[in-house]
């Protein structure tokens, strides 16, 4: 799951009072990913070393002059290129201290911007749409520049992209409410013009982003209504004859972001990778309007992966260089590192979710992934959408209480009343599109509970969660709330039904479960299946005498004595050689931990949180995992029952992670050493057993090939019947 890390400030900004955009004109990567040059809207260009958060150099144009486009860095020549006062191209090196003394050239037409894509030659885009390579332009600065755009057509955004064969300058223009995309190829020059499909009256794209992917240019643009589109443009030059025509650009809607009732003002969306986009300036689906968030969405599964509230006003500006997001907000330019591990459907749904859960899931009301991805209702987890809500309201007007009414009720009424109404609503819920309204309902409940410490409706929430209409991204405060209220049954349900719980929350739950005392745990009423599984496991524990798969404590002992030569140590070892076969935690607590073991996680993101555990917790958890592992390994039937239970693989994964995270601590701790030794000898015996099994596999295969006839021998008396 994608995540946003803790950010830091790169530099302060002068707060712009009445401007919609920040004072930052542009940020460009310098020599490597750790260096950027920031052009502010006044007069200066500053070079920063990002990891040190400090400027390395700054250049300013004279008073009265103005930088009119973002400075770029030409990696080939190690020169900076900027334009002042629209017409003066300035080129300098890092050594140059005073910008005025550096190279200047005045060109004949107004420059829109200079682009220097990764490793390519800088290209100059003129305001009237012409494009020149910097070198050829400087060879004759006063050369005439043609007008590509018609009257009143203005460039809104531009960028440059280098493919393996070609350099391209891409820019969009606006003409009387229509938007066009120009694809200018350099060397050989050719231009292709596309018309963007109009989104609606008065709606122009708020932001564009282009990336090169699979021989196509992938254009991402965001409209004020929260719709995010993607268009693919082939980089190959079109046939010569149709180069002049304006082609309509097909688009795919990637997301429909929740915007609330108002249209977006300043927002932008950029690609992080194939499946993730970062969006700034769009409200968080569950936070109220007016709050400014930076969000990462997964476009494949249309789920919110990470979000971060940014202090101060957002300007809808966002840059991304090598897994760092640069975002100006309030009085600062912040750098926020992010991680976007490749996500799969499996991880989106929950890693190693057992098949039986999946099967039962198909019968529920959740629309299938297919319809979510390809159907008309493209954006599934859009919790707030005005139009939709209106229609639902119309539909449900005849019923006793609509969602909205219940929502209003939640804000005021008592717990009992709310619970009654929620139950009533659930019982008559229209199964076709429940996700949206139930999300709102849950959010309303959670926010009331957060706001009013006296209000907490466990029953209503425990009814809502199993509808499978909620997910953690829809209602991120629900699980922390449940933890806070020590509502472990709700926690268990959330862990069971949410497949997108962030690792941090998972770990918080685990921590809470581990520190829960067994006495308290026994009082809990938990999901009956999970408890009966533990009951079964614990009842077998005592009945167990014969070991099924060849592991025996004595065998284990022998292994150990091989390693330990000291006879004293030997005797000592023998006393406690029997491996952990009693469950270190009560069955209720174990049931809760089992739920954790079955959640989805990404190892890299989980490990840092695991490190926060205290050594007592780690030892307890490890002992429990060892117990499970031993039970599973010695009792083949543990997993063949019908209960939902962690698989042996899941247990092993957790053991590995726990050891990874705490190995040094565990090795030092005297309590843990026995545990580790036990575990090690057991694993060793298992490895030996499996290698022996591997050896006899071949012979057994041969045996199975042999006919039964070989058993007959020289003489037998049989009974035969002919029909």
């Amino acid at each position, binding site marked *: 799951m994608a995540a946003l890390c803790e950010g830091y400030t790169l530099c302060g900004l002068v707060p712009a009072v009445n401007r919609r955009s920040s004072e930052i004109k542009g940020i460009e990567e310098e020599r490597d990913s750790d260096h950027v040059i920031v052009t502010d809207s006044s007069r200066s260009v500053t070079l920063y070393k990002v990891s040190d958060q400090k400027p390395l150099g700054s250049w300013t144009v004279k008073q009265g002059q103005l930088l009119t486009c973002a400075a770029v860095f030409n990696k080939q020549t190690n020169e900076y290129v900027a334009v002042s006062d629209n017409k003066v191209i300035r080129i300098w090196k890092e050594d140059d201290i005073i910008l005025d003394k550096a190279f200047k050239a005045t060109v004949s037409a107004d420059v829109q911007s200079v682009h220097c894509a990764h490793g390519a030659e800088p290209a100059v885009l003129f305001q009237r749409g012409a494009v020149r390579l910097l070198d050829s332009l400087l060879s004759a600065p006063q050369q005439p520049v043609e007008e590509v755009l018609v009257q009143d057509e203005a460039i809104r955004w531009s960028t440059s992209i280098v493919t393996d064969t070609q350099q391209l300058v891409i820019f969009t223009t606006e003409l009387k409410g229509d938007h066009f995309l120009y694809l200018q190829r350099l060397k050989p020059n050719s231009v292709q013009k596309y018309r963007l499909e109009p989104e609606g009256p008065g709606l122009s794209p708020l932001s564009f982003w282009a990336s090169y992917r699979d021989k196509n240019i992938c254009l991402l643009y965001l409209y004020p209504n929260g719709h995010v589109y993607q268009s693919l443009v082939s980089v190959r030059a079109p046939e010569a004859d149709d180069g002049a025509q304006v082609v309509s650009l097909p688009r795919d809607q990637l997301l429909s972001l929740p915007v609330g009732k108002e249209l977006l003002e300043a927002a932008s969306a950029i690609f992080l990778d194939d499946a993730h986009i970062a969006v700034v300036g769009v409200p968080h689906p569950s936070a109220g309007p007016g709050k400014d968030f930076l969000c990462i969405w997964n476009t494949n599964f249309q789920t919110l992966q990470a979000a971060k509230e940014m202090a101060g006003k957002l300007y809808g500006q966002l840059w991304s260089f090598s897994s760092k997001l640069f975002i100006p907000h309030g009085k600062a330019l912040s750098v926020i590192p992010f991680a976007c591990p490749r996500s799969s459907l499996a991880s989106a749904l929950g890693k190693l979710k057992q098949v039986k859960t999946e099967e039962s899931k198909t019968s529920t009301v959740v629309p299938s992934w297919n319809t979510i991805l390809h159907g008309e209702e493209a954006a599934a987890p859009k919790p707030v959408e005005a139009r939709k809500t209106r229609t639902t309201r119309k539909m449900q007007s005849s019923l006793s209480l609509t969602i909205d009414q219940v929502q209003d009720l939640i804000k005021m009424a008592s717990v009992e009343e709310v619970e009654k109404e929620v139950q009533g609503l659930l019982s008559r819920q229209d199964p076709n599109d429940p996700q949206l309204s139930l999300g709102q309902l849950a959010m309303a409940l959670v926010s009331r509970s957060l706001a009013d410490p006296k209000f907490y409706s466990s029953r209503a929430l425990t009814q809502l969660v199993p509808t499978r209409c909620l997910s953690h991204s829809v209602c991120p405060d629900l699980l922390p709330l449940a933890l806070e209220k020590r509502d472990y049954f709700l926690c268990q349900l959330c862990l069971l039904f949410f497949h997108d719980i962030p690792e941090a929350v998972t770990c918080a739950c685990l921590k809470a479960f581990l520190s829960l005392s067994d006495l308290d745990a026994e009082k809990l009423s938990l999901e009956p299946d999970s408890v009966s599984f533990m009951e079964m496991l614990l009842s077998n524990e005592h009945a167990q005498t014969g070991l099924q798969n060849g592991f025996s404590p004595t065998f284990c002992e022998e292994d150990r004595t091989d390693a330990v030569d000291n006879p004293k140590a030997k005797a000592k070892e023998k006393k406690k050689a029997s491996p952990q076969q009693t469950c270190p935690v009560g069955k209720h607590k174990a049931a809760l931990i089992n739920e954790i073991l079955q959640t989805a996680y990404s190892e890299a993101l989980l490990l840092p949180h695991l490190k926060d555990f205290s050594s007592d917790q780690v030892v307890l958890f490890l002992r429990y995992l060892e117990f499970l592992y031993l039970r599973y390994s010695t009792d083949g039937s543990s997993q063949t029952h019908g209960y939902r239970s962690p698989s042996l693989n899941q247990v092993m994964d957790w053991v590995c992670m726990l050891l990874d995270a705490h190995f040094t601590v565990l090795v030092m701790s005297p309590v843990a050493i026995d545990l580790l030794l036990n575990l090690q000898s057991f694993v060793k015996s298992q490895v030996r057993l499996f290698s022996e099994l591997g050896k006899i596999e071949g012979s057994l295969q041969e045996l199975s090939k042999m006919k039964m*006839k070989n058993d*007959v*021998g*020289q*003489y*037998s*008396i*049989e*009974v*035969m*019947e*002919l*029909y």
Partner: protein
Amino acid sequence: MIQMGEFKVHRVRFFDYMPSAIRSMAFNSHTERLAVARADGAVEIFNFADNYFQEKVIAGRDGRSIEALCWVGRRLFSAGLEGEITEYDLENLRPRYSIEAYGGPIWTISSNSQGTLLAAGCEDGTVKMFEVLEDRIQFQTNLSRQKGRIISLSWHPSGAQIAAGMMDMIKIFDSETGQATHRLLVDRGVGTSKSREVVVWSVAFLNDHTIISGDSAGKVQIWDGLTGTLIRTHLVTKWDVLVLAVSQDESSVIAGTSEGTVVQFQFLPSTVGQQDKLWVQTRTFKNHSHDVRALVHTDTAVVSGGMDTQLVVRPLLDKVEKNTQESALHKIAFPHRNLVSCAKKAGLLLFQFPDHLELWRLGESDRNGTPGESLPVKRKPEKLIQLKIKGEDHICCSALSPCGSWLAYATVAAVRLYRLQLSSSNVSIQKVSKLPRELKSVHQLCFSSDSCRLFASSSFSSVVVVALDQTDCKYLHTLKHKSGSKQPIHILSPSEDGQWLATANTDCEIHVFNLRKMKLHCSVPAYSSCPTAVSIHPTSGNLVSVHADQQIFEFSLKQKEYSVWSRQLQRQGLHPLWLQRDTPVTQITFNPNNPAHIMLHDVFMFCIIDQSLPLPEAKSKLYNQRILQSLPEPQRLRESHAFKACKNFQHLLSVNLLEDLSLVVVERPLVDIVCQLPAPVRQKLFAT
């Protein structure tokens, strides 16, 4: 109470029957009889016109080693390393006479196409010519003596020349003058075998004076016999080419190798439409695991045999109609007669080996079980007697009386009868010393069901009846029929009540004698295929016969006509799968509890024919036991048909029903035979 189709089965696998390797073969294309000589000196005659039925077996003899067989007209000659040429009496199944050739071991004999001369190649380097006379052969002349043994011989069809394969060379003789006219030097093998003499194992002299040779260096060579020049060499194996055979039209030659392969060469135009032809290596057949020692090229098939003891008939698919029974591969691994006698009342088995007999008592189980179950064996089977024969002649037939107190066997020279006394602890065997003079030249022995009579088929298709009592045996009568056939009787089948004796001979005749009146009762109408098993029903008195072409007949001895059931069977016809079986039914028994049941078996299946059930339609499934097993009872009755075949037991040598109605099944799995063979020549396999 045992149910209708439920049997307790004694599954016997301790009969260590081991067939002998095939050394030589000769095919008589006029009579379509194949003579096969085995390493133990036995000669077998197969009738290729009658489903490859093994009509006759002439028992071997210690020390007799047959290297070559040769038909001269209907007469069969053999020669071997003991230096004699033997002619066989095919009516009395014994050697007629043997003539010493005085040239040391004889490696080969060959007759000219006119059938007047027999040439024998000897160890001393001479080719000896014998004149074939009416009743014997007479030495005529020696061809000029060579250094080195004569391994192979082939006459030119004109009879004027004869080619002889020797060590390192081939000589061509003028048969008139006896002088060698050409000497063809055969190259030795390369490498280490360079120092070893090359043996020309086989030569073939074709009408166009082409000589084809196969040698121990693995070559098949084509020579021009007029000029004595080598035309072409085909290296077909790293080992020996042991034998060659030529088709009658001389368009195809096959070569058998030590690798177990048979390689075919064909005389074909080098390019389509042109006249000049070449010998081209065309096909390779691999049906043997060991040396192919004997080959016959019939018009339609390659017949091969060798160390692995199996006779293989591989039809040439361009000569036969495809997907017919004629195009199927035949492997004959087991004899078409019984080597096992069973004493039904005493639970004893007698196994016949070439040079000894074994008498076994069956085991016991005191438990009953459900079908498919294996019962615990309370008493293990026990070998009571191993009886080694006296003299050099091998056993040609043997019999055990139903009560288990008499044992008889015969060689070509003599018949021996023993009286057995068996108690639980003590076994005594006593030879009956004075046998009637009439008991000689016997090829089949049989006891009556009350063990008071011994029947012995003798010369001229007669049956000698001998009466047995406690102490001695007395000649009673010789039963003769009047058909004039002199062919040996190969089946003797007395009826349970002692009234009838049915005999069948290789002239396809079945005669029934009335034992009370000691005279011929009737002859069953002759059928074109040889009977392979004949038996008389104990209660109805009907005679059931099964023939080499798999037909089944039931003949009423009272009415002297085919029974209604038999006629119905003939009208409807047997099931195609039944007719496609390639081993003959060798035994018929009846179930005294259920008169409608006829039990019979061949090598691969055991079958009960229930005459009360409808016959299987051609399109219905013949082997339907598996299906019936899975059906519920009422439906099973509806689906079942008369042929209840059981394929659980494979390579059946004998199936008998004991008096307590348990079955004795004697199996000899082919794998057990194969694993007793010597190791085949080492062949480089991939990654070994």
